[in-house]
C-alpha cells in the first residue's frame, strides 16, 4: 500500500504533480460549497403575502444569537471620522461592510456588538439597564429605562388589531395602491430556509427598486433585509445573519460592568431620551407626496452662524464636505444636492433640507411645492 504508492511516484515522477493538483481542486471545491451555501430547493409550502404577514405578527420574540453582516452602499461621500479603517464608531455604518454580533433572550435582554478591527461598540440592554460601551474611547454610558423591555414587548403586542389576519389585510390594503407585495419562497439565510417578502414601488421616480425581507420559515423571525436601488445591481443596504442560533444565550452575555479605567457617564432622564440632541426650536417638517415618493421638507437644525462659532473640527469637516457637493438651483432657490443610491437630499442655501427616496428632480419639485 504505502510502498506501492511511493513506487508509482518513483516510476512516474510526473504523477507527483497530481497531488498538489488534487489539493487545489479540493480547496476550490470546498470554497465553492462554502460560498454557495446549502442549495436552494427547501421544499417549503407556498405562502401568500397575507399568510406571511400573519406569521410575522404571530411570531413571539425569540431567544437567539448570531452574527450579522451589514453592508451599506448609499452613495454618499465618506464621513470624516478622523481615523482610518477598523473604526467601530456608529457613524461608520453609513458606508462599507461591517460585522455585528447580536444576542437576545427574547424577554428584555439584548446585546448588539459592532466589531471594529481591534475595537468594539456595544449596546447592552439587561432589563432596565442600558449600557453603551465604546472600547476606542474606553467609555461607558449608562441609562435606566422606566419600564423594562418585557413590558415594552407587551404593549407593542397590544397595539396589534384584534386578529392577525385582520391586521395583515389592513396592511396589505394600505400598501396596495403604492406597492406591489409578493412572496418568493425557497431562499436561504444563514443556512435556514426563508420566505422572501418582496415590496416593490408601483410609483415611478422612486430610487428604491425593491425591498426584500427574508423571514425564517420555522420561527417567522426576520433574518435578512435587502434594499435594492434602481441605480445599482447589488443591494444598497444589506443587513442579514451569516449565522444564527435559536438557543437561549448564556445569561452572562448580558452582564456589563464597566472596567475600572473607563469613563462612565450617566445618561439623564428617566426615559433615557435626554441623550438626544435638542431640536425643539426648529419648525416641524412638512411631507410632500405620498407612498414611496414622499419627500420630507424641514428647516435645517443648524443655524449657520451660531454653529460656526463653537464648531469642532469634525463639524467643520462636515461643512467642507457639504460645500463640495454639486449645486442645483430652480424656482425654489438654490442649494447643494446629495445624490445617493437610495435617497436624494437637497440642502438649500436658505437653510431648508429636503430628503426623499426619489430622484433629484422630484425633490426639487417638492421644494417648490413646499
Amino acid at each position, binding site marked *: 500500500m504505502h510502498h506501492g504508492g511511493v513506487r508509482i511516484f518513483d516510476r512516474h*515522477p510526473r504523477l507527483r504533480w497530481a497531488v498538489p493538483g488534487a489539493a487545489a481542486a479540493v*480547496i476550490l471545491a470546498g470554497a465553492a460549497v462554502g460560498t454557495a451555501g446549502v442549495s436552494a430547493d427547501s421544499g417549503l409550502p407556498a405562502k401568500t403575502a397575507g399568510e406571511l404577514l400573519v406569521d410575522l405578527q404571530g411570531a413571539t420574540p425569540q431567544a437567539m444569537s448570531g452574527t450579522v453582516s451589514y453592508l451599506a452602499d448609499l452613495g454618499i461621500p465618506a464621513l470624516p471620522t478622523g481615523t482610518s479603517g477598523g473604526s467601530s464608531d456608529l457613524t461608520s455604518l453609513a458606508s462599507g461592510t461591517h460585522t455585528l454580533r447580536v444576542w437576545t433572550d427574547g424577554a428584555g435582554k439584548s446585546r448588539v456588538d459592532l*466589531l471594529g*478591527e481591534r*475595537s468594539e461598540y456595544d449596546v447592552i440592554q439587561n432589563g432596565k439597564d442600558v449600557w453603551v460601551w465604546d*472600547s476606542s474611547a*474606553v467609555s461607558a454610558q449608562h441609562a435606566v429605562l422606566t419600564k423594562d423591555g418585557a413590558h415594552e414587548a407587551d404593549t407593542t403586542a397590544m397595539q396589534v388589531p384584534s386578529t392577525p389576519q385582520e391586521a395583515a389585510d389592513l396592511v396589505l390594503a394600505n400598501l396596495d395602491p403604492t406597492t406591489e407585495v409578493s412572496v418568493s419562497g425557497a431562499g436561504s439565510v444563514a443556512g435556514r430556509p426563508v420566505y422572501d417578502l418582496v415590496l416593490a414601488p408601483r410609483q415611478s421616480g422612486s430610487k428604491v427598486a425593491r425591498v426584500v425581507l427574508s423571514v425564517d420559515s420555522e420561527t417567522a423571525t426576520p433574518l435578512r433585509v435587502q434594499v435594492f436601488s434602481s441605480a445599482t445591481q447589488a443591494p444598497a443596504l444589506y443587513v442579514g445573519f451569516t449565522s444564527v442560533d435559536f438557543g437561549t444565550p448564556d445569561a452572562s452575555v448580558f452582564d456589563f460592568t464597566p*472596567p475600572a479605567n473607563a469613563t462612565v457617564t450617566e445618561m439623564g432622564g428617566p426615559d433615557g431620551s435626554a441623550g438626544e440632541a435638542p431640536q425643539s426650536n426648529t419648525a416641524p417638517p412638512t411631507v410632500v407626496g405620498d407612498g414611496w415618493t414622499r419627500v420630507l421638507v424641514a428647516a435645517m437644525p443648524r443655524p449657520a452662524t451660531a454653529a460656526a462659532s463653537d464648531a469642532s473640527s469634525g463639524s467643520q469637516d462636515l461643512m467642507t464636505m457639504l460645500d463640495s457637493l454639486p449645486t442645483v438651483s430652480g424656482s425654489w432657490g438654490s442649494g447643494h444636492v446629495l445624490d445617493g443610491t437610495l435617497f436624494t437630499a437637497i440642502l438649500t442655501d436658505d437653510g431648508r433640507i429636503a430628503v426623499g427616496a426619489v430622484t433629484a428632480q422630484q425633490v426639487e419639485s417638492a421644494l417648490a411645492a413646499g
Partner: protein
Amino acid sequence: MSASETAPVVEQSRRGPSAVRSHGRMLRSELRLIVGRRRNQMGLLVLASVPVMIAIALKVSTPRRGNNDFITAATSNGMFVALAALTIEIALFLPLAVAVLSGDAIAGEANTGTLRYLLTVPVTRTRLLLVKYAALAIGAVIGVVVVVVVGVLIGGLLFGLGPVTLLSGTQVSLAEGLWRLVLAALYVIAGLTALAGIGLFVSVLTEQPIAAMIAVTIISTAMWILDGISQLDWLHPWLLVHYWPAFADLFRQPMYLDEIGRGLLVNLAYAVLFVSLAWARFGRKDITS
C-alpha cells in the same frame, strides 16, 4: 535522478520505532543548525526589540486618551505590549523571519553543497522535506514565543500586570488573559507555518537562498498590500494574510471565532497546496551541486 527512493523505504518499513528516533535526531540537528546560525540569532534580537521599543516609547510619552487600541491599552496592563508587538510584527518582521529560515532550508543547503550529503542519509526525500518543514514550523514558534514572552516581561516590568480588560469591556483575570494570549500566539504561529509552506516550495525551486528569502518576503508583503486595497475585496478571503489580524477576536467576550476559523482553513489550504507542490518538485529535482 532520484532512483534512490525505493531502497531506504523498504528498509524503513522494517524499522518502526527506530525510524521515529532517527527522524527525531534529524529534526534536532536541523534545529541546532537554525538556532546556531549567527544571522538567526540577530533576527531573534530584532524580533525581541519591537516589544521593548513599544514599551519604552509608551513609558516616556505622555498618556493620550481616545482612540484606544492594544498599544495604549498597554499603559494599564503590560500584557498588551505583547499583543501590540504581535500586531506590528505580523506585517513584516515575522514573515521576514520565516522567509530567512525557508531560504536556508533547501536552497541554502543546495547552495553550500550540503544537500547532496543529506540525501545520502538513508531517509527518503519525502521525509527529508517533512523534517525541513517541521523545523520551519518550530522556527515560527520560536519567533512568536520570543515576541510574546519579551512583550509580557517588559510590559509587566514597566506597567505591571493585572486583570485584563477585553475589547467588550469585560474584565477577566490575568490568568484568563494570558491563556487568550497563548491562543493568539498559536493562531499567529499557524499563519506563519502556512507561509513556511510557500517558503519551502520557493526554496525547492532555486539554489540561491537569498533569492528564496526575497521571493517569500515579496509574496507576503504583496499579499498585505493587496489586502489593503478595498476595491479588491473579492480577492481578500483568498489571501493568506487576510485573516491573520483576527487574533484580536480572541479578546472579545464571548470570543468571536468565525474569522479565526476561516483563517485556519485558509492557512491549512495554503500549507497543503504548497508543501505538496514542494514535494512534487523536490522528488524529481536533480541535485547538481
